[in-house]
């Protein structure tokens, strides 16, 4: 039985257990958010995806990412009140991540250009907004190489036991998902440096370009079953090879 409810007076359908934000996005409603991906558990960290949900006579503000849809609810994705609280939360986040382009842009949409708060005092990873997407992605991928440390005003993103984790494969997903691009990762031809360790790259047998870290390759072979020679050649060289095969077929 599908769940039927309304977003901004438009009737929508969803499967039981789906998150409100996912359903809204699928139906073309844009709700801003900084900490949500469908593929990781929703935790409602950034508080930007606030919406108003009316259920019977009761109405309340809630984040939509971690709201499981229910029959008959009436959702409103915008109102002066919603905008006011989104703006304040964005102001808090902008003060935390002043050099993040994504947050600056979003904050500007809500009329916030300069936060009224100074730099955050405890700030071991500049521009990190503690959305935990990195931790959740790493956990979802089964690596468990990142975690949150501490709580409250001393909460931070860190490594288990404060030392580089053996289980880190250097895939870089943490850096990819970070909405403020605050996780330092540097690649050279031979190595990727991330979270205090250096991972050796598999080098392309044709051109020598880095393909994937060796540990990531080993992990993928073990879990995804692709043969080892899949990882020998880089994307560009594979594409050239493909074009040559096409040519051979055509001419």
């Amino acid at each position, binding site marked *: 039985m599908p769940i039927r409810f309304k977003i901004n007076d438009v009737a929508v359908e969803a499967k039981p257990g789906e998150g409100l934000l996912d359903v809204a996005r699928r139906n073309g409603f844009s709700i801003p958010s900084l900490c949500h991906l469908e593929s990781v558990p929703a935790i409602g960290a950034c508080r930007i995806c606030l919406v108003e949900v009316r259920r019977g006579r009761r109405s309340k503000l809630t984040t939509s990412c971690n709201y499981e849809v229910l029959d008959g609810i009436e959702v409103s994705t915008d109102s002066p009140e919603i905008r006011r609280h989104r703006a304040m939360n964005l102001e808090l986040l902008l003060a935390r991540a002043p050099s993040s382009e994504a947050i600056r842009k979003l904050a500007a949409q809500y009329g916030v250009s300069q936060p009224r708060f100074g730099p955050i005092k405890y700030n071991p990873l500049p521009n990190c907004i503690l959305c935990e997407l990195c*931790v959740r992605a790493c*956990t979802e991928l089964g690596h*468990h*190489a*990142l*975690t*949150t*440390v*501490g*709580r409250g005003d001393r909460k931070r993103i*860190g490594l*288990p*036991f*404060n030392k580089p*984790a053996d*289980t880190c494969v250097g895939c870089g997903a943490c850096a990819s998902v970070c909405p403020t691009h605050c996780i330092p990762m540097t690649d050279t031809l031979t190595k990727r440096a991330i979270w205090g360790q250096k991972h050796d790259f598999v080098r392309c047998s044709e051109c020598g370009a880095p393909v994937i870290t060796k540990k990531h390759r080993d992990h993928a072979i073990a879990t995804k079953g692709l043969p080892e020679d899949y990882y020998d050649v880089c994307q560009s060289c594979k594409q050239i090879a493909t074009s040559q095969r096409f040519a051979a077929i055509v001419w």
Partner: protein
Amino acid sequence: MTAAKTIDPKRIDRVLARHPQGKPTALVNLLHDLQAEFRYLPELAMEKAASYLNVPNGQLFRVATFYESFHLKPRGKHIATVCTGTACHVRGAPKLTDHISREFEIPVGGTTKNMELTLETVNCVGACALGPLLILDGEYHGNMSPAKLDRTLKTIKRG
């Protein structure tokens, strides 16, 4: 800091054996017991606990750092805990922490260089009627004042 004594893995195993293997439910209880054994949580003990309970290192470390009860560094011979509950606060607990900090030159949570004293705070031990309260090595001292503190901490070596 005095050289950290090497941790005997057998001591860790003995504590682990008191808890069901592979059950994360036991995690916080187990950490308490490990800390009771070593007075803090040595890294080796945490790593062994993680594999014993079958939880990722990250989860164990997250838990160990989230809860205020757990200490990841060796603590002093004596532990002075100032209650900073509301009742103690309005009766002057901040003066106690300030005083010990100043006298022993350690911040809250810190340990003197000679490993004699660690200063900690706790959010209420439920003896609010007797505030402000100092707990020295588990013993409660009620109605404290900076002047009384000096007497209570008299035997502890500075430095």
